């Protein structure tokens, strides 16, 4: 293992890899990525692969609008699957419809083209859906999905080919700080001296930051998902059933990926539970009766790394020179990765993000009581 680097990134998830990618594009080469398991082994390879800008805070919308553009550019440049197949929220009460009218107004005011759609339009966008019980929906045509495996692996290969060193199976144990300046990272394979350290280690960031005396309010929330066997394309949009906060999407490989909410507690080890399979079947077989005959291949757990205001912690840690963080995406890390990588590289090199509102997402917001306000939590 090398003993020295300009920048050490802890975590080879999509956030760490995207940060390395953007640094490489700015001409930085002397970068080391440390990964305790294998690349993508945390949230990145367990995610729902959805990408949208239709959020309910200005911070999320403005960052995600840029991310949606970058997903298209990256997928074209590196040749991985990305499709703007849209999102459809399925609404079953007039109250939900009224609430979503407010969201749509908010999105539209920031240039995100969502719209309320009728049951007939849902049927056109989602062939074979049984719409009984639905009063309407919301469509976000700018939203989409990407291949979570290929996107990460191809970007990682790109940075490796440019000279970035990647150490998998290597655990970062301590961030060494002296006189409020980072000195390096202690790993289970030795010490790496570094001027700048980026902590992009998901929930693991909490304990790591503690070693530098930094308290980050992160909580791990277990989540559950399954995939079925694969089929030719049946429908393009990612579907969200608002009443049960469940989703279903046909992935690039043709499998149906289903997530459904079951009760969970913070910071417990995610375990497989039969209730999840009952819930997933109950919600989605109602919409697609044919799904009853389709085989479930895999059921896995993952987690959302939550912050108190459900927005990520990004950028420099103000009181420690050379320490940066990107975590706490609260379920939206994969989709935000392209813009987060870009902003992190800007913070590191130019000391300023190109999207000024990103400054609101720094860790100090919790200390200063400036939490991000949302008009409502939206999926």
């Amino acid at each position, binding site marked *: 293992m090398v003993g020295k680097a300009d920048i050490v990134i802890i975590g080879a998830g999509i956030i760490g890899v995207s940060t390395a990618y953007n640094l490489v594009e700015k001409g930085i080469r002397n970068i080391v990525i440390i990964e305790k398991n294998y690349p993508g082994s945390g949230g990145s390879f367990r995610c729902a692969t959805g990408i949208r800008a239709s959020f309910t805070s200005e911070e999320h919308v403005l960052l995600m609008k840029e991310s949606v553009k970058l997903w298209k550019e990256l997928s074209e440049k590196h040749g991985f699957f990305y499709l703007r197949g849209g999102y459809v929220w399925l609404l079953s009460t007039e109250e939900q419809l009224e609430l979503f009218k407010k969201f749509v107004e908010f999105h539209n005011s920031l240039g995100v083209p969502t719209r309320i759609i009728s049951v007939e339009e849902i049927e056109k966008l989602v062939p074979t859906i049984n719409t009984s019980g639905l009063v309407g929906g919301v469509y976000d045509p700018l939203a989409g999905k990407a291949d979570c495996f290929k996107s990460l692996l191809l970007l990682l290969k790109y940075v490796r080919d440019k000279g970035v060193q990647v150490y998998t199976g290597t655990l970062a144990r301590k961030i060494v700080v002296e006189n409020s300046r980072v000195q390096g990272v202690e790993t289970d394979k030795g010490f790496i001296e570094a001027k700048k350290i980026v902590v992009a280690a998901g929930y693991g960031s909490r304990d790591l930051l503690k070693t530098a005396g930094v308290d980050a309010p992160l909580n791990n929330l277990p989540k559950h998902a399954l995939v079925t066997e694969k089929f030719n394309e049946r429908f393009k949009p990612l579907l969200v059933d608002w009443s049960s906060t469940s989703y279903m999407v046909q992935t690039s490989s043709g499998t149906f990926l289903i997530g459904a909410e079951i009760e969970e507690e913070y910071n417990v080890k995610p375990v497989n539970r039969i209730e999840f399979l009952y819930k997933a079947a109950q919600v989605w077989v109602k919409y697609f009766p044919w799904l009853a005959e389709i*085989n479930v291949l895999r059921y896995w757990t993952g987690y959302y790394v939550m912050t108190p205001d459900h927005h990520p912690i990004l950028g420099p840690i103000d009181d420690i020179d050379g320490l940066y963080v990107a975590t706490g995406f609260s379920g939206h890390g994969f989709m935000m990765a392209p813009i987060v990588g870009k902003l992190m590289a800007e913070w590191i090199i130019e000391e300023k993000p190109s999207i000024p509102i990103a400054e609101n997402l720094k860790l100090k917001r919790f200390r200063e009581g400036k939490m991000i306000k949302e008009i409502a939590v939206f999926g």
Partner: protein
Amino acid sequence: MDPKKVIVCRCEDVTLEDIYKAIEEGYTDLESLKRYLRIGMGPCQGAHCIPIVARILASKTGKKFDEIYIPGNRPPLNPIPLKYFLKKQQG
């Protein structure tokens, strides 16, 4: 035998040549190789192909089989239709 004609992962239609190429490109751990090529992600869940791929990887990288092989164990062990998870309606 022509590596193009040897199918290693039958569910996802991955040939021996695909595997050789991916290893050359630097996908030299089983977790990355599996996700890059989708080996073991079909109905057999890797039961047939993963041990074979691990052996190919071992011979190409000089690592021991035991260092490389990670048995997958995500439920259900065999594909099962969603209808078996439907609870009976009351009445």
